[in-house]
Structures are given as C-alpha cells and as structure tokens.
C-alpha cells in the first residue's frame, strides 16, 4: 500500500506539470468560462432555465471530450513509457506490479476527475451565487457521481488497451475506434438493425444501455428532466423497467463496475504477459 500511494503521488505530480494536463484543464475550465460569457446560464430554452441549461450543455461537451481525452492521454502515457524504456527502469526497482499498476491508475484517476469536477463546482457556484437561486446539492452530488463513473469506465478501458497493445501508435488507434464506436456508431448500427431486421425495440434499447456513454447521457439528462420527455418513447421503456432512482443507480454503478472489470483484466494481462 505504501508503494501504491507513492506511485500514485508521483504520477499526480508528474501529470500536473505536463502539457496535456494544462490543455485538459484549460478545456474544461475554459469551456465553463465560455458558457458564462456567452450567457448560456441566462438563457431559457425548452423549459430549461439558467443553471439547468448550463449544466445540460456541460454534459454534452463532457460526453464528447472526456472519454477521448482519458483514452488518448492514458494510452499515450503508458505505452509511451514502455517504448521509451521508462517502464523498464521504473520496474527494475523492488515494487510489486500490483502497486505499480493500481498506483498509476489511482494517480491518473485523480488527475482526470479533478478538473471536470472542479469545473462543475465552478458552474454550480456561479449559477447559484452570481445568478442567484438555490444551490442544487442533490444535482451536484449525483452529477459528480455520474462524472466519477464516466472517468472510471474510460480509465479502465484505457489501462486495458495499454496493457494489451504494446505499440504506442496502435494503442492510440484502438482508443479512437473505441471512442467513435461508443459515441456514434453503436446508435447508428442499432437503429439500422431495428429498421432492417425489425428487431424488438426493447432489445435494441437494452443493448444501447450496455454503452456506458449512453448510460451517462440518459442518467445526466434525467437529472434535469426526470420524466425523460426529451427522449420520447425510449423514456417509457426506461422508466417502466427501472424507475428513476433505480436507473440513476444503474447509471452510476454500471460504468464503475465495467471500468473496474476492464482495469482488472488489464492488470491480469500486465501480470501474465511480458512487461516489455
């Protein structure tokens, strides 16, 4: 445990000095600032007002940017370390693979989660104190949990890719494929299947709910629109099957478990395959 926290601490320190972290920080902090400047927090559209509108847009941005940032920077860092022999040197010291792997994962988690969480807190505080209104504690808490689980699942996938694929370029390529598949292709493919083969729509929705990005999107929207009216008929299936609270629980727990599953599988390969 002592070495695990040592690896995590040093990874955090190293990452905070890196250029990718600065860009990451600027993107999320900058976007939030941009939302304030452009007056998104003041606008009223489709019944969503002020803070809700701001957070809803933040969700859309997070869904697109966060996964690809986590995937690419993580696989670049780990497979880059392998290719440049940094991993060889660091692992020539008596440190267990368990401490090294999970320490890196913990450090990386803190680094990817903190900026998005802080940007969210900034947005909420701005909305509540500058624009006036009540601080939406429940929304902040649940949305933070959703962000936590989105970070966890993509970090788990990134670590899995990094341990399985040795080449740096291939690892980055695989990350892009995973991201674009989860972001767009699955929905298009499922709609195609439904139209061409007349598959049962309940089955299609169930498959869609295996996609952690979809789960995050629906979970986050349900915070502002508990009846899921913007989603149309899909809402009936979700609310009839799960109910709002159970669905939120699923939206938080499923990506965390999936991320842990991938991370554990990555660890399994890390231990059982050649390290270099």
């Amino acid at each position, binding site marked *: 445990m002592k070495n695990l926290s040592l*690896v995590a601490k040093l990874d955090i320190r190293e990452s905070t*000095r890196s250029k990718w972290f600065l860009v990451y920080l600027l993107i999320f902090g900058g976007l939030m600032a941009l939302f304030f400047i452009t007056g998104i927090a003041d606008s009223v559209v489709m019944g969503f007002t002020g803070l809700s509108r701001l957070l809803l847009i933040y969700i859309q941005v997070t869904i697109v940017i966060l996964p690809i940032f986590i995937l690419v920077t993580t696989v670049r860092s780990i497979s880059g370390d392998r290719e440049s*022999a940094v991993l060889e*040197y660091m692992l020539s010291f008596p*440190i267990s693979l368990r401490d090294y792997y999970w320490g890196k994962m913990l450090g990386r988690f803190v680094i990817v989660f903190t900026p998005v969480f802080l940007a969210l807190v900034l947005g909420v505080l701005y909305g509540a104190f500058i624009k006036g209104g009540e601080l939406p504690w429940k929304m902040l808490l649940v949305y933070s949990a959703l962000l936590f689980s989105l970070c966890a699942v993509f970090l788990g996938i990134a670590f899995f890719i990094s341990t399985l694929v040795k080449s740096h370029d291939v690892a980055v390529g695989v990350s892009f494929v995973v991201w674009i598949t989860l972001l767009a292709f699955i929905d298009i493919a499922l709609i195609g299947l439904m139209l061409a083969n007349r598959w049962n729509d309940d089955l299609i929705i169930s498959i869609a709910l295996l996609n952690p990005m979809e789960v995050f999107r629906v979970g986050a929207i349900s915070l502002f629109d508990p009846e899921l009216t913007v989603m149309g008929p899909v809402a009936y299936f979700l609310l009839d099957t799960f109910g709002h609270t159970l669905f939120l629980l699923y939206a938080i727990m499923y990506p965390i478990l999936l991320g842990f599953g991938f991370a554990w599988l990555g660890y399994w390969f890390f231990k059982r*395959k050649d*390290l*270099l």
Partner: protein
Amino acid sequence: MIEIKDALKRFLDVNVLDHVSLRILDGDRIALMGPNGAGKTTLVRSILGFYHLDSGQIMVEGHDPIKKRVEVLEFIGFIPQMPPPIRLSIKELMEYVSKSSHIDPENIEEEAEAMDLAIADHLNKPFFKLSGGMKQKLLIAIALAKEAKTLIFDEPTANLDPKARERFYERLQKLPEGITTLFITHRIEEVEGLINRKIYMDLGKVVEDERI
C-alpha cells in the same frame, strides 16, 4: 547466486534465448558479449522478471523473478544503456528509488558526488532535461547507492566522457568482493581489469563461457 536452467524465450517463432543454462556465482565479475540480436538484453530482462520464459527456469537467490519480483529486485541494481526520458524531477526520482528500495538519499548524493555530479543544484529539474552524461551518472549513483548484491550494467559508459568513465571504473574496483557484476558490453578492453569471467552469446545461445 543466479541460476539459469535451459531457458527458452521465443519471439515470433525465433528462439531469442535458445536453451540457455548458466550459473552466476557470488563475486563473479562478468562481461556478457555478443553481436546485436544475440540475446544478451533478453537474458538480462528475463533475470529482472520482465519476460516470461517459454520453458526453463531462472532463480535469483532462490527466487523466481516472475513470482517473487520484489524479493529478486532487492538483490539487483540495474543501469540501462540509454537513460530513459523519465519525466519525474530528480527529487521525485530519488524519492521513488529511496522509498521503494530502502536507499538512504544521502547515499545517492554521496555516490553522485564521487561521479562529479552535484545533485543539490538540480533537484527540481526534470530528469529528462539533464544532459546525457548527467543522467547516466545519476543512474550509476542510484544503482551503487542501492548496495545490491548483483549489479547489472547495460553498456553503462556509453554517455560518459573519459574522465567520468575513469571515475566509474575506479569506483567499481572498490566494490566489496562478494558483489556480482554483469556488464553487457561490446568493448571488452574497457572492462578488462574489472572482470573475472567472459560469456559470449550468439543467436540466443551461450557459445563461450571462460573464467579468467
């Protein structure tokens, strides 16, 4: 003692280690030589537990490097051929090695001073921003400060100027008798006074093993 029994390691159907057997005794000072692709680095990486053998066995002080990597790596100090571009600062790197290997940071500073490297002036500098020679001196200082029973050097003087090279060899001559050293080298004349055994590898096999 390091015991290698019938070690076989294959990469893409090529036997990179082809049934290698070796016994490295305490106090052995070895020059491991051979052309590129002979299997020297693979052998060292297998001793360090980076590679899983396809068959055969390696035991370091009675421990399997894969199953007991922490115990094995406590016995070994390693210096790579090219200093890797570690992004940690010198201070952080020293924290990593001193906490993971129970090294007193003062020992590292002393060993670095013996190599004409004043660490104190560079503590907050990222390791990769040091010059090639400074990086190599620091890695040598860390390996020596570890006071490991076995020291493995992969062409350790490639980045050193003649004066630093001389200092390094002088320091090695002061190592206690029971310490084992293993140099991967292409220039036998450089380590001639420091070795008592020559091992020559080619195409994954040990083709010559001579005690001097």
